[in-house]
């Protein structure tokens, strides 16, 4: 077991001061949220996969707690504790420890305990403006700390949802493909299923009951289900209602009888998901894929172009920026724009910084209204390692 957090603690602290100075100057208030957090909020936002990467424990009172795996959720909770659900916009920054279980064993690049420095902007409605400013701030901070060589990977989960909307996919399938998109492997299987699978896939369900359900008559559907259970001698057990079962059965029925997704639309969605390359040309590629859609790509791509222009205006060298449609879908709680900063040659160690838009998190953290939020954080040990390596390469 590791006995010290870092062998270069003083260098890390000196570096953190440089990073924090950049954040403070941009109007972010320094905060120190609690290290020990309720596991609940994380489990809600991330799901049970949290337990695979986080130190979750039960305290002597039986409460399920965790050592914070990041500072974003703690900062959201801090904001709610201060303001309730009042839509008061705020800018925060922090520098402090975070903890992650490393299933492959901990090492220098993947420590159990590491220090994160970052920024969160909560309640700012200026979407791509706020996103571009957060990216710029993070890039500026790592440059001030001494990193010369970096690349910026971007993605946009919101753009995927817009594309599904633009190609006029039925709402039911938009939701399903949207969910599947977040799971590697599941997305293309689902797309194939919607476009190619023959009808009658669900022969495992009671067909007669299925056909007797009437979306326009909930009472009759309810009676049909109760009658079915009675006849089979199945007891009604648990909290889930027959209404929920009927709703699900009706959506299955709708799929069984609906037309398949047409191959052209399926191909467009698939081609969009495959877009990956320089950010400057990705917009044109997406526009080309969607050119035959009635009404064209519309507002979705405008947002993409505007964000990129904002980054260029802020002095970000766009030749270092790539875009991948699939990027970011496995990253915890992000809902829209996502980014990662890497140092070439150290890519295998994982990104130096990352962040994005997380519009669902404030609600999971306890707010009773939707509050937009975007942020980014720097893995300070990796940043120090990259800068130290840069210096060694330049030295005669």
């Amino acid at each position, binding site marked *: 077991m590791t006995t010290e957090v870092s062998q270069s603690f003083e260098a890390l602290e000196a570096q953190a001061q440089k990073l924090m100075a950049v954040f403070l100057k941009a109007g972010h208030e320094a905060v120190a949220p609690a290290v020990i957090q309720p596991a609940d909020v994380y*489990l*809600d936002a991330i*799901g*049970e*996969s949290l*337990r*695979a990467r986080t130190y979750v424990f039960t305290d002597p009172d039986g409460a399920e707690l965790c050592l914070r795996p990041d500072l974003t959720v703690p900062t959201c909770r801090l904001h709610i504790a201060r303001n309730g659900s009042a839509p008061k916009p705020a800018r925060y920054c922090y520098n402090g420890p975070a903890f992650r279980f490393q*299933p492959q064993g901990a090492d220098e690049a993947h420590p159990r305990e590491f220090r994160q420095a970052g920024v969160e902007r909560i309640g700012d409605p200026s979407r791509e403006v706020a996103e571009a400013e957060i990216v710029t701030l993070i890039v500026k901070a790592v440059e001030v700390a001494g990193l010369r060589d970096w690349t910026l990977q971007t993605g946009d989960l919101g753009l995927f949802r817009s594309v599904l909307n633009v190609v006029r996919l039925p709402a039911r399938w938009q939701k*399903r493909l949207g*969910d599947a998109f977040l*799971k590697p*492997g*599941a997305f293309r299987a689902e797309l194939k299923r919607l476009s190619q699978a023959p009808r009658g896939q669900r022969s*495992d*369900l*009671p067909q007669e*009951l299925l056909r007797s359900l009437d979306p326009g008559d909930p009472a009759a559907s309810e009676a049909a*289900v109760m009658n*079915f*259970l009675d006849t089979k001698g*199945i*007891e*009604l*057990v*648990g*909290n*889930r*209602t027959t*209404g*929920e*079962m009927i*709703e*699900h*059965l009706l*959506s*299955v029925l709708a799929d069984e009888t609906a037309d398949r997704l047409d191959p052209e639309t399926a191909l467009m969605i698939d081609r969009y998901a495959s877009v990956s390359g320089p950010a400057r040309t990705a917009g044109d590629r997406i526009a080309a894929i969607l050119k035959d859609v009635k009404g064209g790509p519309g507002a979705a791509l405008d947002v993409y172009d505007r964000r990129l222009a904002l980054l260029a205006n802020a002095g970000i060298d766009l030749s270092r920026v790539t875009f991948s449609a699939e990027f970011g879908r496995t990253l915890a709680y992000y809902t829209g724009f996502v980014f990662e900063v890497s140092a070439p040659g150290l890519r295998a160690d994982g990104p130096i910084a990352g962040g994005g838009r997380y519009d669902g998190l404030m609600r999971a953290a306890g707010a009773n209204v939707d509050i937009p939020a975007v942020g980014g954080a720097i893995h300070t040990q990796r940043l120090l390692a990259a800068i130290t390596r840069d210096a060694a390469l330049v030295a005669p």
Partner: protein
Amino acid sequence: MSRLTLAMPSKGRLMEQTTERFARSGLVVRKVGTDRGYRGEIVGMPTVDVAFISSSEIAAALKSGSVHCGITGEDLVRESMSDAATRVIALAPLGFGHADVVVAVPACWIDVTTVNDLAEISGAFRRVHRRWPRVATKYMNLTRRFFADKGFGDYRIVESLGATEGTPAAGTAELIVDITTTGETLRANSLKILADGVILKSQANLFASNIAAWTPEAINAREALQARLHDPD
């Protein structure tokens, strides 16, 4: 420990079955010292020390390498190690202690037959009940790994150390992951197994720890033991 330490279940049905299974291979296990003691030997195998330990602790002992070999269920080994394949080797399935670790839901969920269905209903469940469906289990790690492999993540685990089958009817969980042999207890509690819900077909096995310190003497003893248990006469 230049000799081989073999951990055997210290009580209950698993202990009896282990002793019987060894006897069928001509291996007589005897306690050393008092009858209440926890140390033993195998007649005719002077380089083997037997340690009687509770079966869940046998998995922990294999994991840390404090014993060379141990007899316990695959379910307990896989549950207690995220990296079981690197820490232990299953040497010989022993033909008893059969139990399937399964996902079971209320039989009245007529719209749910697969894990994919669970993924489809959990969003609606959350909208109605303001929480994710809860899975009661003592196999927290097996459950998490199994559902992660299937791409299902919208659920919450509630740890259950007994009477797990009763939790859906009691309203403290929506579904369960538990062991079953005949399915009788599940049926009695109005539960059904999902079509793709068998996580593990478990039985008792002779495991060897990769972490333990292996001397040539211990390796010889292990090979002798393995040969005898593989070929009951």
